[in-house]
C-alpha cells in the first residue's frame, strides 16, 4: 500500500513511506513531526495548514504527499527561529497579530506569499490577500497591521545597503501582479 516519497522540506530531503491517499499536511505533522503546520478544517476553508510550495502559499490539506515530490516545501519551522525571526514573524509579534496562535503559522505563510507578489499592499489588498485564512481571535485588525509592518520592514531592508535578513530559503520569484493567497 505505502510507497516511498522524497520530499524537500525546509531545504532538507526526507524519504518517507506514505499511503497514496495521505495528505501532505498529515505527512508533515505525523511522519515528519513538523507540527507547526496546523489543521483547522476539513474543507480547505481555514488556511491553518498553509505552507509554501515553490514559494507559493498552498493549503497543505489540498495536496497529496505524493504530488509534492520534487517541489520545494517550506513550513513555519523553515522560515525563522525564535532568535532569528523572519520579518513577518517579527511583525506579528510586534503588532499583536495573534492571540491563541493556532491560525498564525498558516497566516504567516500566506502573508509571505502576499508580500512576495505585492511588497506594498494596501489594507484592502491585505484583507483580500489573507481571506483564505481564518482567525477567530484577533478580528484581523492587528493581522492587517502586522502584514503592513512586515511589508515596511522588508522594503526598508531591501533598500538598505546593509545585509538583509535572509529570505525564506525556498521563496521563489513570482511575476508581479499575480494574485497572492491560497492555492485553491
Amino acid at each position: 500500500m505505502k510507497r516511498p516519497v522524497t520530499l524537500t522540506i525546509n531545504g532538507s530531503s526526507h524519504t518517507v513511506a506514505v499511503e497514496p491517499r495521505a495528505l501532505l499536511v498529515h505527512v508533515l505533522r505525523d511522519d515528519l513531526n513538523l507540527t507547526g503546520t496546523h489543521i483547522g478544517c476539513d474543507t480547505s476553508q481555514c488556511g491553518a495548514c498553509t505552507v509554501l510550495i515553490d514559494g507559493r502559499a498552498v493549503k497543505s490539506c489540498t495536496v497529496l504527499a505524493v504530488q509534492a515530490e520534487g517541489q520545494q516545501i517550506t513550513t513555519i519551522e523553515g522560515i525563522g527561529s525564535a532568535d532569528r525571526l523572519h520579518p513577518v514573524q517579527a511583525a506579528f509579534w510586534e503588532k499583536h497579530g495573534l492571540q491563541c496562535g493556532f491560525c498564525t503559522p498558516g497566516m504567516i505563510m500566506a502573508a509571505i506569499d502576499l508580500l512576495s507578489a505585492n511588497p506594498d499592499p494596501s489594507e484592502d489588498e491585505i484583507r483580500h490577500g489573507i481571506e483564505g485564512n481564518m482567525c477567530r481571535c484577533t478580528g484581523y485588525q492587528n493581522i492587517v497591521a502586522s502584514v503592513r509592518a512586515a511589508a515596511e520592514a522588508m522594503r526598508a531592508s531591501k533598500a538598505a545597503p546593509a545585509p538583509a535578513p535572509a529570505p525564506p530559503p525556498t521563496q521563489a520569484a513570482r511575476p508581479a501582479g499575480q494574485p497572492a493567497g491560497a492555492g485553491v
Partner: protein
Amino acid sequence: MATTLFGSGIKRREDPRLITGMATYTDDVKLPGLTYAAILRSPYAHARITRIDVSAAKAAPGVLAVYTGADVKDRLVPVPCAWNVPNCDLKTPPHPQLAYDRVRYVGDGVAMVVAESRAAARDALDLIEVDYDPLKAGVDPEKMAKAGAPQVHAEVPNNVAFTWVVAGGDAEKAFNEAEVKVRQRILQNRLAPTAMEARAAVASYNRGTGQLTLWATSQNPHIHRFVCSVMLKLPEHRVRVIAPEVGGGFGSKIPVYADEALVGLAAMDLGRPVKWAEDRSENYKATIHGRDHVEHVEMCGTRDGKITGLRTTIYAGLGAYASTCGPGIPTILHGLIYSGPYTIPNIHGTVHGVYTTATPVDAYRGAGRPEATYLLERLVDLFAREIGMDPVDVRRKNFIPRDKFPYTVATGITYDSGNYEGALDKALSLFDLKRFRQEQAEARKQGRYLGVGLVSYVEICGSGPSQVAGAVGLGGGQYDSAIVRVYPTGMVRVYIGGKPHGQGEETTFAQIVADEFGYPVENVEIVAGDTETTPQGWGTYGSRTTAVCGSAVKVAAQRVKEKAKKIAAHLMEANEADVEFRDGKFVVRGSPGEGKSFAEVATMANLAWNMPAGVEPGLEAAAFFDPSNFVYPFGTHVCTVEVNPDTGEVKILRYVCVDDCGPHINPMIVQGQIHGGVIQGLGEALQEMVVYDEDGQLLSGTMMDYAVPRASQMPRLETAFTVTPTPVNPLGVKGTGEAGTIPAAAVLVSAVCDALAPLGIRHIDKPLTPARVWAAIQQAKGGLQ
C-alpha cells in the same frame, strides 16, 4: 522610580513559540505506542437504535478495539451537568457517553474505534452497521415546549428542562399602568463557537501507578480532572489533566465531553495511549453551540422617556442534553443582567430551558449577556421610536447615575462601579452623531439608506464570589489561585489556576509580578494548564482570569515580598519597620547603604545560611483569591451602515467602541480582546448561524456553510476607553474578553433598522444576511407577502 510594567503594552511573552511553530497543541502530543480513536456519530437527529454490528470493524486491519454504548454504559458515570440552577425544577436526564438505545442529535456518539493509525480508525467506522428507527425531531425551542411536540427524553414532559423566573419590583402593575408599551419577538441565532483548533484528547494510563494522564483541549483543566475522575470512576488524585497550548475556546472548551471519558477508558483497557482529534465537521456536530433563544420581550415606560418595566418570556434551546454549564447560561448569566445600565424598577423574566434534538448548547463568548443586551437594547430603540425621542436621550435619561454605585438593580445584583454617561460622552466625542443625521437625511433624499446604531451595555463577569456560585447551583468554586516560586538565582515561576488560551496572561501576570519585585519581565515565567503543578483553580472563561486569578497572583507576590523584606532586614541588620522597597531594592530608610536586591534576598532565602529567627527557608507563597463581588464592565458602541436596497447588502461604514474594563495592565492586549470580541459579535449579527432542517439534519456542518468572518468581510474598528476601577479586587481591573461581543450584534442590528426606518422596518432577526434584509425590504414595500 523604577518603571512600572502595569499599563505598558509590551510584546507578548507567549508569542515566540507560537510564531515559530514550536508550540504544542493537544493534537501535536505524541507518545510511544500511540493509538488513534475515531467516533461514529449519529446521522439522525432522533432515532431508536435497533441493531449495531461491529464485527466487521473489529476484524479490520489495525483495529484494536471497538466500543458501543452497551459496552460502556455500566463502566462510565454519564456525562454530568455541573450547573444545577436551583428553584426551577431542573431535570437533567442521563447523558451516556455513547448512545445505547436512542440517539438524540446529529452527532450523538454511537460507537468508538481504536486503531493503530488515524486512517485505520476512520476506515473502520465505515464497517460498523447500525440500524436506526427514525423518530420525529424538533429543533425550535418554542415549538418543542408545546404539547404534542416530539419527546426528547421520556422523563421530561414537553421537553421543558426548567422554568426559571427572575423578578424585581412589580412588572405586572408597571405594564398595566404604563403610558407606552413596546413588544417584539426576537430570535437569537444558534452559533458555533469555532475555535480554530477543534477539540482533541490524548489519554495515557500507567497500570503500575494507576494514574491516568489526559491531555485535553480545556479552558479549565481542574474541572476536567474532577469531572473525568467521576466519569471514569477513578480517584481524583490519580487523574492528571494537561491542557497544553489551546487554540481558542470561546466557551466551547469549558464543558467536559463524552469523548474525553471514552479515550480515558480505552487507554486503561489497552494499556496504550489513545488520541482522538475532531475534524471540523465533527466539531460542528459534537462540540457545543451557543445562543438559540426564541424570545418574547416587552418594555413599558412614560411618554417622556422613562423606562418603567421589562418583561420577557424566553425559550432557550439546551439541545439534546444539559451540557456542563448549559442551564446556567440563559438564567443566571442572562436574566440577572436584564436591567443593563439602566434603572428599570420593575423586571419580570421567565426562561424555559427546552430540550431539542440538536447539539447541546453551552457557553459561547458572552454566554447569556449578549442575548440580554440584545433584547434590552432592541427594546430601548423600539421604545424611543414609539415615543419619538432620540434613542441616545432615552439611554441617557435611564442610566444609573455615576454617583449611585455600588447600585443594586431590580434583579437583585449589585453593580460594583460605573460611569455610563462617561462612556457615552466619549463615544459621542469620537462620533459626530448630529453630522451623521444630516448626512443620513441627505442620503435619504437620494434614495440611499444610511443608519446609525448606538448601544450602551453593562455586563457581569469576573466570577466569584464562590459563595454566590454555590448559591446559584454551580458545582464548583469561583475563586482562583497562584503559587509564586522564587528560585535560588532569583528567577520566578508562577503557577496559576487559570488556563489562558490566547488572552495573554503569560505576559500580563508576569507584568504584575515583575512590578512587585522590581524585575524586568523576563525574570518571570507563568505556568498554566497542568493539574500536576498548578494549584486548584477554576479556569479561564467568563472574563474572569485577570480579575480573579490575576488578583491571586498579586496577593501571592505580595506575600513573597513580605517574607523577603523580613529576610532583607535581617541581612542588613535593620529593623523590618525601617526597610522599604525602592527602585528594585530593599533599603534601610535614611541609610546610605547599597541595600539588597530582590534577587540577592531570594538567594539567601533559598540557601538559608543566615535566616532571621522563626522564618522558614525558601521563598514562595500561594494565594487563593475569592472576590467579594463580580465585576461589571460597560461601554458604548456606535456603528454606521449603508444598506443596499436592491441587494439587501449591509456595508459597515464606521464602528466606534468605547469600553471600560478598569485600568489596563497591557493596553495592547486589551485592545486586541475588544477587536476579536466585536468581530465575533458582527459575525453573529451579519452571517453566522447554525442551520438545521425540520428533521434536525445539520445543514451548516462545515466551514463552507457556517460563515465564520473573513478578513475581507470585516471592518476596521476604532477603539477607545474610559477607566473606572473596581473596588472588588486589588488590581482594580474588570474583564475584557467578552466585552466586545456583548453589544456588537445589538449595535449592528440597531444601525440597519435605523437605516430602514423610512420603510417602517422596526426589527429584522439576525443574522442580517443580504437575503434576509432584502426580504424585509420587499415585505415592507408590500412586494413579499
